């Protein structure tokens, strides 16, 4: 009788080891499977993958990462066929490290304008969004806002919210600023913004809109598409309704944007299936779905701006029915500034209380 627990333990152990070994075993290369490494929000891309699966029978197997997309790709360049990222700057870094292979696709070339394609075909963008200013409808008038740099002025002391400076979105924004304004002006802006924060940087972009709703701050830097996402959610609608979106720098070259991106990895063993998925994602009907679902601006869609996006930038004379002036900074230039931005943030002790 005393042996029973041990026999049971042995049995359980054997089952666990066997199952784990089975799970660990590398699957043979399956042409009907595409492995996707992505740092995008699951809810935004999973429906697109599911639709591709239904249409083609090719199984899409994603892994959703939080941080370290390039580090993982660099460490294990053979495990994924595709990279789908919220921030195409990362693809430029991956390209420089030799982790991507050029995509030769007439369909992609036809659908995606040249400015959203890397010249050698290493990657392309499927959509973009503005790194905008959210402001309280109740406590701020749009006339009070103008540029990103103005948020560093003393009048905004204790009134600004932003997510971690080290997040990819802000690394990209500050990198673009260095390219557009120069290092010294950007450094001054980062320090000034840090001084004006209502609280240490935290949360995601929706968290900043929530902070405006909760009156923790009056303005925040966040991506434009979160407005549509929040207004589509019963629980987050109040956060969205409390804010409005302002496109900064409309008289100084345009608002900075963030581009999502896609690329084939160098080691993909399922090139045809992966290529088919990439081509599918830039077809007009899918691009329109991306726009409707994520409220990002597709690079190749035919549908007009969504109702929500048409109302962004209201009160700005330069913005007509949501159409704003974009300032495009080349991705290679932004990626090259990444380390410099991190050092600036360290110097400003940006994320510290």
């Amino acid at each position, binding site marked *: 009788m005393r042996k029973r627990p041990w026999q049971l333990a042995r049995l359980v152990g054997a089952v*666990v080891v066997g*199952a784990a070994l089975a799970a*660990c075993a590398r699957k043979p290369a399956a042409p009907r499977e595409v492995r996707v490494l992505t740092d995008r929000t699951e809810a935004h891309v999973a429906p697109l993958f599911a639709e591709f699966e239904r249409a083609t029978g090719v199984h899409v197997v994603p892994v959703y990462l939080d941080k370290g997309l390039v580090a993982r790709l660099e460490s294990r360049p053979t495990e994924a066929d595709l990279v789908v990222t919220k921030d195409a700057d990362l693809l430029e870094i991956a390209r420089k490290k030799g982790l991507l292979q050029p995509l030769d696709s007439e369909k992609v070339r036809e659908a995606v304008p040249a400015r959203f394609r890397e010249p050698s075909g290493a990657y392309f963008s499927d959509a973009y969004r503005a790194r905008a200013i959210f402001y309280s409808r109740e406590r701020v008038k749009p006339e009070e806002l103008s540029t990103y740099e103005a948020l560093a002025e003393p009048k905004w002391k204790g009134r600004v919210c932003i997510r971690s400076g080290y997040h990819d979105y802000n690394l990209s924004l500050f990198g673009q600023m260095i390219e557009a304004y120069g290092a010294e002006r950007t450094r001054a802006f980062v320090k000034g913004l840090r001084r004006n924060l209502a609280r240490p940087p935290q949360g995601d972009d929706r968290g900043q809109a929530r902070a405006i709703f909760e009156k923790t701050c009056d303005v925040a830097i966040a991506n434009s598409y979160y407005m549509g996402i929040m207004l589509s959610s019963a629980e987050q609608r109040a956060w969205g309704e409390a804010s409005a979106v302002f496109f900064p720098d409309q008289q100084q070259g345009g608002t900075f944007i963030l581009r999502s991106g896609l690329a084939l990895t160098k080691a993909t063993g399922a090139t045809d299936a992966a290529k088919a998925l990439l081509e599918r994602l830039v077809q007009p009907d899918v691009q329109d779905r991306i726009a409707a679902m994520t409220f990002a601006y597709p690079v190749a869609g035919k549908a007009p701006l969504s109702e929500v996006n048409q109302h962004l930038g209201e009160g700005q004379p330069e913005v007509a029915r949501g159409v704003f002036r974009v300032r495009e900074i080349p991705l290679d230039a932004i990626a090259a500034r990444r380390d410099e931005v991190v050092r600036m943030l360290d110097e400003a002790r940006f994320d*510290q209380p």
Partner: protein
Amino acid sequence: VRAGAAIAAAILGLPIATIAIRAVGPGGLDALGHLAQTALPGELAVGALVAIGASALAALLALGGLASSIHDFPGRALLDRLALLPMLVPSWYLALVARELGAARGLAWLVLVLGVSGAPLVHLVVGAALRAVPSAYGDVLRLAGRSRAAAWHLAPLAFPALGATIALVALAAWADAPSARVLGVRTATVSALDQWSAREDASVGALLGLAVALPSLLVGFVALGRVARLGAGDDARASHERGVRVPLEGPRALLPWLLALPQLALGVVVPGAAIGAWTMARMPRVDLGTLGADAARTILVAGAGTLLAGLLALPIVHAIALAGRGARVAARLALLPFALPTVVLAVAVLWMTPGTSPVLAALADGVAPLVFAFGVHGAAVFVGAGLAALERAARGHVAVLRLVGRAGLGSFVAHLRPALGPSLGAAAAFVFLQALDDVSLSIVLAPFGAPSVAARVFQLAQVERVRDTAVWMTVLALLGVYPLVTLARLGESDSRR
């Protein structure tokens, strides 16, 4: 025997060696120098404050457990079980609940959350140490008319356990990254994660990871060694009757409950009510198929990691029993990966399994790296538990095994099963619980198409959808019930042995 222990210790030392090798890069020292002049001192100070604050708070909150370990009062067993319930909810989820309910942010909230999360461990270990006190102590106190002050007189006997466990809670708080990120606190560990992901030069992340790991390695080296020897005092070994039971009557019977009230309110009632209410509201919308698959996979990976941890630890425990002092160095080395912050361990394992080699790529595919990481991280707990069990086993037992030529690992385990079984069982339950709750390893090393329950909850909650994660969180908590009950039961019986 020594070779087996050496191989196991070498495997356990691989992550730290990998980090150390990666730290030698062109940009690493330069970046660390820059960080040392700018953000790092502040981040280290915040990390230290969190560690000190959380461990002190955990000790305070566990006072009820201390009282319940040496007194008899109505509902004592219930209080002991309730006090452990916060172990079912990861600290980062407590942080999410606090943020969702009260817009909690900042250092004070992080200390509170990590203190509440750490208190059950203090309760468990200190309780076990006090239950190991010979019952004769109670008779002496009664004869001396000091029964009313029993807690005061017996508390010093729990100080070694208290000190070691507080150090462990401090270690966990220092190494924490998910809760700090949820509450917007920039500790040195969070900074290490950011620098690794933001900079192109891997040596910067490695060097900072090493810098963050050093204090925890030192604390872990001392604290885990102490935990390994807990309950091994000569007085305790000489006694056949363990456990002082001083009855509390009348209004005094409420005292342990009153002392435990803050911990029960913050760690059980508030999060339990919130998660319960959100679960009821979301239940109809949940895809049960996905949930079931996630749960099954989580059990499998956590179970395999726990098993690997035990397999890596057994040769070391075996060697210590037979080879003595020399093998103790291996044991100390085996403790180190547990002290390594899991975000640093995750990056180390990622680097250890490069896809550039077809053999390593095959090994690194699927859940293997994650299982390896859980195994390496949890082995220290098994080593500690094994050493504690050895201390309690009859000293001559191992010598006889050697004399009759039955000193192999199989015979060793078979003959010392009564002593090793409960300790290793409790260790397995603890390691399994930790693997269930993990997000740092599970997200960095996530296998394709196979997220764990905790990883799915954390990633969904990151986009401000905390309430939508409640059903998954409930399942995660339920998965931990059996291991927690086992841990409590074995811990109790082990301390009485």
